[in-house]
């Protein structure tokens, strides 16, 4: 191997090393344990989102990484260095607070340049860097404005630029979009993601909005009651949730009980016995076996609905249409199959007029259904 090859190899090894490692982190407030052993690795340049219902500990975890809250047990390792005891001003992490926390007595440029001045950058370099950052967030024209003369979205950008000013190793974003109105949120979340990818900056994002989390992240960390429930890409989390909580957290879900009757080892064709009939699916997971009691995770949009035609083909169950709410691009249907009520989303609905008057419908369960093993 040539030296060049070795160097390249070492560099790629270096890139494979995670930027941030959390090792079995615990946090107590008095007797109240808010984090109960969190372990996680965040890769370089990755955007990881902590998501979960309020009180799950996601913000506390973010504050621990930033150094604002003392850690009760465990280790935080940033780029190979243990930073448990470093105060925020000595950590190479920068945070963007939910309320932006912009200094109201300073202009936009002074806010963005605050960290640079504190770290004794020369004046000319500071000015150049501030210009560069303001250009990046498209606020050059506002450099001398006071903070309260900016719109919410502009304030968000200033906070973002300020947090990036010192080129941190990890950027921490605490619900950065929650103070913006719905449309602006969509725009800003795309902008943040684009910038993050362009700068290749490792980012930890906290939100309670599961859809925002799915849209923006490389990986999601779903938390509940101080524990990680599942870590995975948005697709993994949505299509292969680890448990009922996650399945329900990232979107509406219909559950159906069943027992695995057989699994064809070569085709993975699997027959599931339910009380409404036998269903066939193609199994994409290997944590279940024949004879297991399972919960089928059926997303509302994965089911196809057709008007009752009497012809019962494979995976089609007979249901009673209880309500049909037409809303243009989507129709929300409530169907009962036996004693079970299912919510079914029909995108690009056709024959709405007929459905409105229909009583019986055919419900086709897709073959790509995820199974949760029942305990």
């Amino acid at each position, binding site marked *: 191997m040539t030296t060049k090859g070795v160097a390249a190899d070492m560099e790629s090894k270096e890139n494979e090393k995670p930027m941030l490692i959390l090792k079995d982190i615990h946090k107590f407030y008095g007797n109240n344990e808010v984090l109960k052993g969190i372990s996680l690795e965040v890769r370089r340049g990755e955007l990881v989102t902590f998501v979960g219902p309020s009180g799950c500990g996601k913000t506390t975890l973010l504050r621990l990484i930033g150094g604002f809250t003392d850690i009760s047990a465990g280790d935080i390792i940033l780029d190979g260095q243990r930073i448990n005891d470093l105060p*925020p001003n000595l950590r190479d992490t*920068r945070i963007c*607070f*939910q*309320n932006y926390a912009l*200094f*109201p007595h300073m202009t936009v440029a002074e806010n963005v340049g605050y960290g640079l001045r*504190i770290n004794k950058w020369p004046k000319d370099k500071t000015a150049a860097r501030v210009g560069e950052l303001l250009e990046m967030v498209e606020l050059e024209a506002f450099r001398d404005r006071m903070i309260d003369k900016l719109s919410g979205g502009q304030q968000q950008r200033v906070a973002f630029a300020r947090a990036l000013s*010192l080129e941190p190793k990890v950027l921490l974003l605490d619900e950065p979009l929650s103070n913006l109105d719905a449309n602006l949120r969509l725009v800003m979340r795309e902008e943040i993601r684009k910038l993050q990818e362009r700068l290749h900056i490792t980012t930890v994002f906290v939100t309670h909005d599961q859809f925002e989390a799915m849209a923006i992240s490389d990986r999601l960390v779903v938390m509940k009651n101080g524990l990680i429930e599942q870590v995975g890409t948005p697709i993994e989390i949505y299509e292969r949730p680890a448990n009922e909580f996650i399945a329900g957290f990232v979107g509406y879900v219909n559950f159906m009980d069943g027992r695995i009757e057989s699994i064809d080892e070569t085709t993975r064709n699997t027959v599931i016995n339910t009380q409404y009939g036998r269903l066939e699916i193609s199994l994409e997971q290997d944590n279940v076996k024949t004879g297991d009691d399972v919960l089928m995770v059926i997303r509302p949009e994965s089911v196809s609905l057709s008007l009752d035609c009497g012809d019962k083909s494979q995976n089609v169950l007979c249901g009673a249409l209880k309500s049909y709410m037409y809303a243009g691009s989507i129709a929300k249907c409530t169907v009962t199959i036996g004693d079970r009520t299912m919510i079914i989303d029909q995108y690009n609905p056709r024959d709405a007029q007929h459905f409105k008057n229909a009583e019986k419908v055919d419900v086709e369960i897709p073959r790509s259904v995820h199974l949760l093993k029942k305990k």
Partner: protein
Amino acid sequence: MATAELSVKLQASSGSKVKDFLNANMVNILAALLFLLLAFFLLYPIVAVLIKSLRGPSGFTLQYYQNFFSKNYYYQSLINTLLLGAINTVVCLVIGFCLAYMTTRGPWILRKPLKIISLVPLIAPPYLFALSLIILFGRNGLVTRALDLHWELYGFGGVVISQTLAFIPLAYMMIESTLMSLNPNLEESAYDLGATEATILRTITIPLLAPGLLKAALLIFVMTIAEFGNAAILGGRTPFLAPDTYTMITGESDFYMGSVLSVILIAPCILIFFIHNYLLEGKKFTTIGGKPVASEPRKITPLIKVPFVIITTVAAGAILICFAVVFAASFYKILGVTHNFVLSNYLDFTSNRAIYNSIRVSFVAAVIGAIIGVLLAYVIVRGQFFGRTFIEMISLSGFALPGTVLGIGYLLAFSAPPLKLTGGIMILALNCVFRFLAVGVEAGISKLHQIHIEIEEASADLGASFLTTFYKIVLPIMFPAFIAGFIYTFMTAIVSLSAVVFLVSPGFDLAAVIIFDKAVYGEIGIASATTMKLVLIVMICMLILNFISNKTKLGSSMKKSAAV
């Protein structure tokens, strides 16, 4: 709009025109009546002082003012007073800031105890500190004798120390509330961007607190220069405006010079009241809302921690010691001189009769004050008439007026017909009512802001007349504010000294006046015991107030108005 709608509704339902008029204009009629009361009992006495200072035996004259500025003695007392105010303000701000910083940013375990100690002086009449300084450092003081010292407590230094201790809670409360309202994320952001504790203080915390600190400074300044008790007890031969006014009136019966001194004392107060209200209005940095959260304790660097801890410890220690020595002194004829433990101080007849008188006066004041406070709050919030802000301003101005001025004012205004009140309990009570109106009014206003006008409109819509609505809807909702105003007026009145000292008649002593007299004449035991009785009464009042505010969520609003 409320009244207009009300009147429309009522005209439709009721027949009598007089009744309609009354219903539609009840708020205005009420406002007019209240304004008359304010004019008569608050403005008129002050004007009387002003007139007295300008009118000689032969008409208008500036003779007395000329006297003031030409005689070194008077002139010196103005300088002393302003100097005292300045020093006191600075010291109180520094101590208050350290205490507030520790209780909002410091370690959790220290927050609560420090806060309690900082607020403890509230239960004491301010002159408790003068008393405790006499016990410790006076000519026969414990420390003086133990170390065989020959120093002079009576003078500028003694007054500064006792005033500082007395005004720590005010400084603390005001600074704490601004510190609490400062979004902790701001300081955390600076910390995050590499700033050290000292840098955060210099570049973020203090600049952002500046308007709040300035407000606190102005208020403390006004309160300090107007404060009578400590300066009168410990001033010795050093002249100060407030006690000099008293000497002028009671010692030399010179009402003309007394009035001049009052006008000179009131001038900076009025000036500062206007600055406080208008210049600082809206000069607050707004930050984007988030949940207001308590700051988590920070690793405070020794550079900040050491001086802060020293200052807070000294201040907290001094406060506790002062209470302890007055408590101890109440069981001896003169602590440190006589060694027999006695209860006679508590059984003293004059003292107990004075306490009884004080309770009577304060009770009457509290009843009247609470009623007027609630009514004023109502017309200020719901009224639509011209001069509404003016009424609000006067009713809140009482706290900024030096007590001595209002004391002389009452003496001048109500000692002769048409309304001769001197010599009775009413003049004392009314004086307290109008001096301490501000808190009752503030409590009422904040309570009313919680009620939507729609509730009253709904009542009117259902056919109720103004009085019925007021009686059935407004009063019950405002009841907590009424009680708060009542208790607050009661406990402020019972310890107040500066105005009533002019108004008590021979044979009808008040507790505060007894303490003042006994302290001046060296009967420390009785003064201490009487003080402790007052402390006990105020403590009970505070507990009741606390209980009510917890029950009715009036807490935050009361705290705010108490700090204003």
